[in-house]
């Protein structure tokens, strides 16, 4: 893999005043400002929002799924297994 990974951000949108923010997907962006703009451009094209939250996917802590069996180390800490969550030592090279 030659290309450095662009950080992943989870997007939450409040559609109408009074409603809670709801998760609607993710975007790739280098920083929070651009993540917010990307979220606005990608997820609110049909006028679907009054408020947008973005957070780095790596900042999310998730609970265990109902099924407690795991084949590998518990993923309870991350919402899913995206490559940027796991740091690999430089000596190991690209993975």
């Amino acid at each position: 893999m030659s290309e450095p990974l662009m950080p992943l951000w989870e997007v939450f949108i409040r559609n109408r005043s009074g409603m809670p923010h709801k998760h609607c997907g993710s975007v790739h962006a280098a920083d929070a400002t651009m993540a917010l703009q990307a979220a606005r451009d990608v997820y609110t094209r049909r006028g679907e929002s009054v408020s947008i939250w973005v957070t780095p996917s790596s900042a999310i802590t998730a609970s265990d799924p109902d099924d407690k069996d795991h084949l590998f180390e518990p993923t309870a800490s991350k919402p899913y297994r995206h490559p940027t969550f796991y740091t690999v030592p430089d000596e190991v090279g690209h993975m």
Partner: protein
Amino acid sequence: MSMGSAHLSTSADSSASLGPAPHAPAAAVFGYLLSLGDDALVLGHRLSEWSGRGPTLEEDIALSNLALDLIGQARLCYAYAGEVEGEGRDEDALAYLRDEHAYRNLLLLEQPNGDFAMTMARHLLYAAFLDPYFKALAASADPRLAEIGAKAAKEMAYHLRHAAEWVIRLGDGTEESRTRTAAALDELWMYTGEMFEMDASETLLAAQGIAVDRGSLRPVWEATLARVLAEATLARPADRWMQCGGRAGRHSEHLGRLLAEMQVLHRAHPGASW
């Protein structure tokens, strides 16, 4: 004579259905609307050329949003222009059946997209002007123009933010991105003067509170650029001879090619509906 001053003409009472303010010659308003519409259409067309070619999927979508805003603005201006002219020309007749010498857009906007730095630099230079421009137009003595201004002002605020954030990142990113962005600004600078010029006709409209005094926006434009370029660690290009002629239909060699492509299918089937 800026729009913010006490230049409220008596025509502020006109209802939207009566068209332009009574004291304004229809020809002047028509020409003015064409220049607004042509600016929007030409730049919107240029941005649509990025479709499928953006540096990221997110940016591809963002650029299309910018283009859609502008094409929407063009359609509003052309629709009104056709009514003012009163000869039955609709938005498509105006967009597709005028030759380049009848187009009144700024030279800045017909320049080729170049690389992403060139496109964002062009957008920053233009949005930094258009954002305060439409805010001022929202107070036009002509209710239709005021409506167009109000809607476009909301859109342009986002255009400016988007372009500014990119120029900052490209200016203060890598050596390569800085070089490209500095080169882009230098290349486009000679087209910025034209934004602030008005011919006799538009000057008359500004005096009547219908159009906006372009020159009055220079300080806010300079201030916006100064702020953004400083954060981008880029230098403001040196003042130089400014190119002009777009408003009079004297364009660069690029517009002819742009219109040839844009208009070819429509012109190949005269009178057809699509």
